[in-house]
Each structure stands twice: as C-alpha cells, then as structure tokens.
C-alpha cells in the first residue's frame, strides 16, 4: 500500500472525567483531552509526545473508539467511527489495533503465544481454520520470532520477545492503523532499538499507519513522520520531527527538547519550574503559562489557538506567533 490519503481524521476530541475530591467532596470535572484534532495518512506515523497526564494515551484510546469522546468526532477511512460496542465498530476494530506498554500484562499467561496470535483471526473470522497455523507462522517470522517459539508461554520469553509477540497479534488482522502506547518504555535500551527497527520494517512491509504515543522525543523522531506535542490535554505544537526537535517553537516543546539528556549537549539547559499542573485545576488562559519563561499577561487570560505559522508548523502560543512580546513569566511569582 502506498502512503498518502487521510486514514484517520480526528476533530476537536474532548474527553472529560468526573473526579471526586475526598469522600464527600464535590465532583470536579477533569478534561483529560481538551479539543484535540489530528490527521494521519496511510502508511505514515504520527508521534504523540508529552508528559504523564497530558492526555496522550486517552487520545490514543479515543481514536480507536475504546472510549467515546464527549465532543468531537473521529473518522476512519472516510467514514464516521461507528458507536463503540456496535456490530459495525467491532468489524472495524479488525482494521485498527492497539499495542500497550507492558507486554506481559497484554498477553494471557496461560496460553502459548501462537494461540494468542491466532485469536484475532478467530474473533474476526478471517481465513479458514486450516490456514491459521500458516498465517501464525508468517506473523511470527515477520516480527523476528521463530515458528517453534509460538509454542512458548509468555513467561518463557524475554521482554523484547514478548513485545514482538504482542506486535504479531496486533498485525494478525492486517490492520491499517496501529496505535502504539509507549511500546518501548518498559524495555531495555538495546531491546528498544530492536523494537523501533521492527516497527519501521513492519510499516514498510505492511503499509500500516501508526500513532506512536511516547514520552521519548528521540524515539519519536526515529519512527515518526510527524510529531505532535501535547500539554494538559491539548496539542501545543505539531510539525516535522526534525523541525520540532531542532527548532522547537512552543516554549514547552523547547523545555522538553532541552530536557533530553544526551552526551555532548551544549549550552545551558532550560529547566522548567514546578510540576505539570493537575488537569482538575487547569490554569486559566494558556495552561502552560504558570511554568512558561516567556509568558505575558495575555497568556494568563486567553488560551492561544493551535494555528499554522508561515512555514506550516502548527503552534499554540501567543508569543511564538508574534502576537505579543515575550514576557518574564509567572514562575517566580507563584509558590507551588
């Protein structure tokens, strides 16, 4: 399958949760995802980066219909996503699959992996039963496992091999979209490289589009064609990975890039003050303004919209768009 053409289009996704503070407390509304729009082309990868609680995993679940958005809509292959749980949605789910962070948790410990890889074929009634074992063998080889390893149980495999088994299962139905939620975070460095290489190989071989959710900008650069940076439920910057990594425009992206520890990093690191705010206590205006080194008074009042700069990069920042001059920030004024 050639890349090109929009496969996934999400517009204005919002997901709210009710959170109770204390036993008798009032329910507080938490906006985990607060108006996220994204597009993914066939056979391409979009990296979604951000820190814990920024809503990147929830976004992944929303685009698969594993959760229903409170507002906004998702269309897949030109069609509006059917009601989750409906017959049509189940059918569509064969074309989009999810890969989680913890492969041991995602696999059934009591079944050999070949049985688990064949399961999606049974569920979606794909192929004749007699062809299943051939298909499983092909899948095992595609992810770099030996066919005889199909008889192993998850605990008999190493962490990297388990993640390969999870990928084989996800690919069993030949999906057009794979949502990978931190697929390498639980793995050792040398194994991370193996899995990243495998993801690229599989994409080339099967033309699978991927939504790669990660906190690791380096990994995202390695596997993605585009990257979106999220902060507190919103996308704050989106563009080509190299452009974002080398010339981040949003102050938060700049801090994220500057926080990447790597040998030979030159110059002073930009260390953000304070912690990411609680989504239940969303700051007014731009959610990043209390930690932002260049925030101005407008930033505390008005949330910036995500819009393209002249070079096409999408940025949600008053200062980066030149609407106002850089300020001094509020970080010093507010004790956490």
């Amino acid at each position, binding site marked *: 399958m050639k890349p090109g053409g929009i496969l996934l289009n999400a517009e204005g996704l919002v997901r709210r949760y009710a959170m109770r503070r204390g036993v008798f407390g009032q329910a507080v509304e938490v906006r985990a995802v607060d108006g996220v729009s994204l597009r993914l082309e066939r056979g391409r990868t979009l990296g979604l980066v951000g*820190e814990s609680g920024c809503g990147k995993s929830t976004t992944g679940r929303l685009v698969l219909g594993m959760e229903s958005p409170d507002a906004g809509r998702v269309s897949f292959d030109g069609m509006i996503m059917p009601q989750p749980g409906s017959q049509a949605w189940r059918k569509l789910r064969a074309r989009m699959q999810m890969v989680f962070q913890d492969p041991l948790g995602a696999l059934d410990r009591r079944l050999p992996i070949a049985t688990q890889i064949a399961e999606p074929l049974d569920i979606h009634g794909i192929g004749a039963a007699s062809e299943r074992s051939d298909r499983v063998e092909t899948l095992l080889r595609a992810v770099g496992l030996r066919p005889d390893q199909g008889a192993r149980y998850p605990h008999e495999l190493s962490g990297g091999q388990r993640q390969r088994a999870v990928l084989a299962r996800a690919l069993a139905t030949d999906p057009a979209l794979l949502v990978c939620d931190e697929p390498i975070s639980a793995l050792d460095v*040398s194994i991370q*490289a193996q899995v990243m290489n495998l993801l690229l190989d599989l994409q080339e071989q099967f033309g699978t589009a991927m939504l790669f959710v990660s906190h690791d900008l*380096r990994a995202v650069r390695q596997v993605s064609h585009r990257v979106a940076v999220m902060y507190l439920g919103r996308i704050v910057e989106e563009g080509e990975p190299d452009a974002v990594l080398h010339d981040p425009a949003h102050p938060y992206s700049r801090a994220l890039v*500057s926080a990447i*520890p790597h040998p030979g*990093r030159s110059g002073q690191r930009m260390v*953000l003050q304070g*912690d990411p705010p609680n989504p239940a206590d969303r700051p007014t205006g731009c959610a990043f303004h209390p930690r932002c080194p260049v925030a101005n008074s407008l930033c505390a009042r008005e949330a910036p919209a995500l819009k393209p700069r002249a070079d096409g990069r999408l940025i949600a920042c008053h200062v980066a768009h030149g609407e106002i001059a850089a300020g001094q920030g509020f970080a010093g004024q507010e004790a956490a």
Partner: protein
Amino acid sequence: MMQLVRLSGLSVSFDGAQALRGIDLSIRKGEAVGLVGESGCGKSVTWLAALGLLPAKARISGSVLLEGQELIGAPPATLERVRGGRIAMIFQDPASSLNPVHRIGKQITEALTLHRSMTGSVARAEAKRLLDLVGIPDAARRLDAYPHELSGGQNQRVMIAIALAGQPELLVADEPTTALDVTIQAQILELLQDLRRQLGMALVLISHDLGVVAEACERVAVMYAGRIVEEAPVTHLFSAAAHPYTQGLLGALPPMDGPRRRLAAIPGGVPEPWAMPPGCAFAPRCGFRASACDAAMPELSSLAENHRAACIRVVQTALPRESLPA
C-alpha cells in the same frame, strides 16, 4: 583525590546463580561515577551488597572497603552507622520508599535523630533547612504534608533530603529519575549536581540511561551480566568506546540529528545467570566474536589513562598492556 570506597572482587550469588561476578571499582572523595547497564546486569545488587541490604540467602564474597574499613561481613552495628551516616542510598520510586501514613517532617527528623542525635525543635529546624536545600518551596509548611500531597518529583526531593540528613560522604542514587517525567528528571539531575558542588559529596548514579549519566557524572562504569566491561571518563567513553557492548549501547540510542538511519540494535538478549557463556558473557551477541572469546572471561585491561575495557580485541589493538594502578 583520596579514595573513599573500594570494591574488589565483589561477587554475589542467589541460590547458585551468580548475579555479580567480581566487581572492582573505586570511588574517590567527591567524585561522581555513573554505573550503567541493562536490567539484571547487577548494577543495583552491587550497592545493596556493599551496604548489607541483600536478603540472607545471598552469598557475598570479595571486599568493600570504606576508607580502610571492611563492610562485607561487618557486624550490624558497624553497618548501621555506615548506612545513611556515611553512605546513603535513594531509589527509583520515591512513593514506595516514603511511609504514606507519616508526615514528611517526621520522616526527615527520624533520620536526623538516628544519625545526628537531633530532637525537638532543633531537628525540625534542620529538617526545614534540608527541604530548602533540596528546593521544596514553602518548606516550613510542607513539613506537615503527607507524601500523597506532594508530586512525584517533590517526593524524590524529600527522599534526597532524608538521604542528606546523615551528612553522607557518598550518595548512591539508584535510577533516581526513571519514574519521573522528563522535565522533572532535568530538575532532579540539576539538584544532584548542585548538592554535590555545595556539599562535596561523592555520587554514584545508577542508571540504564547513558544520557543521564553523561550529564551528571565524571566517570562511567558499564556493566554487563554481573561484571564491569568498560570504565572511562565520561567524555572518553562517548568519543572512544572500546567494548563492543558499550558501542552497541551507544548505537542503540536514536540520534538527535542527522539522517535517520536504522538503529544498530544489539541482537538477542542478556544471558540468564544460570546459563552464563563460558568465556565473555557478551560473546553470543557480539559482532566481533572469535573463538578465543569463549576460552576465558576477559579481564579489564588498561587502554589509556583511566580507561579500561574487558575485551580481548581491545587488548590486541590498543596500547601494550600495563599494570593497573592500584
């Protein structure tokens, strides 16, 4: 610089499976040393063994000298004075290291009472000073907070404050930023650097992340399957890694710039402790494997000043072997 801690031939086995197979490492006063390796390579076990924190079934041999004083097999009373008092340790997950039902002020003063016999208002004032030192805003009020009221990054700061309570000469930080977000990781690394400068304390930073170690340390020891395979000053290690495993770890890191190339992943996985290869433990995954690799475990040999590697290739290609400085 004076030597503070010296590990020699430190070995640990659990039920016959060897977790550590002869570690030789010295830490000088005030020095920052990184210990890098993948899960199961023994980087944490090394320091748990040195401080007598392993379960009774662990068989420990070799020697750990703290300024001439032997810690392996030392009586509990001696170890208790060392732990927290001279060598303090912090761990990956601050939330599970702190007691959830006690206020953090109490947990810091507990350490102050234990190591510096401080009590009452003196201890409380010192606890506040320590919280200030580790950069917790509004320290006086935070003394009465419970761990769940603080964020993960703040809890790690509290752990560091407790570790500093005994005025240790060496802080062993075991993956201190792994559970934290990247921007918070940057804060904690900066804090550790500041503290080291202010207090002249030595630091051992255990991490799986070469990048983290590169920023916080002067010297790095790379571990694989229970042994140190390479040891070098940080800048040297990144520019001239000699051991194929170290080269592999560096090649596995996605680059920040330049064309996107396929990552040089190290094939296979770490050997299990009960199925160690006869010679070099890395040989089965090594691209330069030769028959000689299986003959014997390669010893650490000197390549340049302060640069040692345990690989037979290295010895053949590098400087003539010289005797190691004691």
